[in-house]
């Protein structure tokens, strides 16, 4: 099952921060990390990744640096301390949310209420 972009929109920041948790990546590498990390389920439109990275950079959650690769300018992002704190907080919140949903949708038959 491939979730649509709208379903992922509310979780995009958490996904981007998680993709940068192991170290710096450039935009295309972030996209590929999300695609590979999700077993191909999260193949986000590339055009949405770059503005979102700029947005969370403006918010101080990541910082970008320029380098030159094959004669092209490359912007690589890494988590800031604030980004790392946000990742931990959002990850905990997500775990609680996911556990609550799972406990409801995977429980046994509901008791009759007549």
């Amino acid at each position, binding site marked *: 099952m491939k979730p649509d972009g709208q379903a992922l929109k509310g979780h995009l920041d958490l996904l981007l921060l998680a993709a940068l948790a192991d170290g710096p990546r450039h935009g295309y590498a972030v996209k590929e990390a999300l695609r590979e990390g999700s077993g191909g389920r999260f193949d986000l439109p590339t055009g949405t990744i770059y*503005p979102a990275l700029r947005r969370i950079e403006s918010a101080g959650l990541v910082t970008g640096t320029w380098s030159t690769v094959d004669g092209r300018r490359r912007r690589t992002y890494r988590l800031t301390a604030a980004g790392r704190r946000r990742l931990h907080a959002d990850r905990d919140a997500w775990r609680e949310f996911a556990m609550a949903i799972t406990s409801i949708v995977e429980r046994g038959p509901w008791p009759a209420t007549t």
Partner: protein
Amino acid sequence: MAGHHLIDAYLAELARRLPTDVVDELADGLHETWRQHLEQGLAPTDAARAAIAEFGSAAQVSDAFVAQASGRTTARLLLATGPIVGAAWASTLLAARAWTWPVPAGVAGGMGVTLLGVVACLIAAATTRHGYGRTRLGHVAAVGVITLDVAMLVLVLLAAPLLVWPMAIAIPASLTRIAMALRRMPRTAVA
């Protein structure tokens, strides 16, 4: 690696809509995507078409940057909170009979003109959907808001003959807004 004319044309279209830094970053990602498709065995032109399709049209990419631009978000935040701070200051000026303060007409007029300019910039930045350049007016307006707030605080400090209760709302509101506007100033050249 040499480019492809379809990719060059696509980047030229993006360059008409977005700042150079953003286009440079997109160019790198687009070439990586193209290279990936070439490695998977696509012909150069098919690989270029596939890479561009993955990115979306130049208009879609540009609009996504506009929608998430920090200047636009800042403008929306300041527009939303402006009436509250404005009402607090209006109450203060009325209660303290500001027309009797020893303030030169030029200073009062300058602040009025600045306020109109700030509001115009905020509206332009907050409402744009396609123009990236307009989103930057949000940061220009934020500087104007800070200037006006500081001017009002100095004015009250130097010229107000008496304390009135709306100041208890207006002064903290302005200080909070100054802090918020400063925090939202761009940390990067392109924001």
